[in-house]
């Protein structure tokens, strides 16, 4: 099954309002420091970055390390400037790439 995402962007906001954006994505975030039950190291498999754009312009970007808990949950803020699309792109180990987006109406 494809990685599931859950984004929370307010559907409506006033121009200039600072809004909270929450993002949740399913991912094991295998930290690379564990061993299986016969002692073999389990290779790292994590999301390494999340980038967020607002009508194409980057508003937030973050690098994630193995210390981020499984199913990464990140809350950040942005100024509601105009109506449009807030897009998320997660990338990670083993060619992991997931895109998601949400629409916002700004009055």
């Amino acid at each position, binding site marked *: 099954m494809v990685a599931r995402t859950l984004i929370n962007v307010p559907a409506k906001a006033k121009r200039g309002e*600072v*809004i909270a954006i929450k993002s949740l994505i399913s991912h094991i975030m295998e*930290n*690379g*420091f*564990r061993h299986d*039950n016969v002692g073999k190291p389990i*290779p*790292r498999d994590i999301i390494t970055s999340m980038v967020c754009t*607002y009508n194409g*312009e980057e*508003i*937030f*970007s*973050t*690098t*994630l*390390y*193995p*210390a*981020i*808990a*499984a199913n*990464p*949950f*990140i*809350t*950040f*803020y*942005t*100024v509601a*400037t105009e109506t449009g699309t807030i897009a998320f792109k997660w990338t990670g180990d083993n060619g992991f790439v997931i895109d998601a987006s949400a629409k916002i109406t700004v009055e």
Partner: protein
Amino acid sequence: MPDRFSAISATRRTFMAGAGAMLVVRPAQATPASMAAAIRQVAGDAAIKPGKIKLSIPPLVENGNAVAITVTVESPMTAKDYVKSIHVFTEKNPQSNVISTKLGPRAGKAEISTRIRLADTQQVVAICELSDGTFWSDKVDVILTLSACLEDPI
């Protein structure tokens, strides 16, 4: 002292660049010194002063697998005066870096929240870089309790 730190960070930078996509095998437990080195990699030689940034993390944690943290920096977040980046580090996790976030005036509010893993009772440090190039830090000591019943990793 500053010379030795920059020498260490320069060697680390070259090493890290060489490691490329491969995972660098680290000792099972990092030390305050490796955390300091990780911080230096981000801040270079800049002085890091306590203040302006606040790391919220529960002082007593039930389970180290998902610890909620919030990092807030007092800043007007205007085009002239804003927070450029926020970074979090741990003292005793196998790897010191936790998260590195780029911000800008469009953020409106310099705050991020996430859930992190803590391997042991330890200190967690958050630093930020402001648009004027200054670095600020906050640190919190966290105590971890362990589950009462151990289980197999099935």
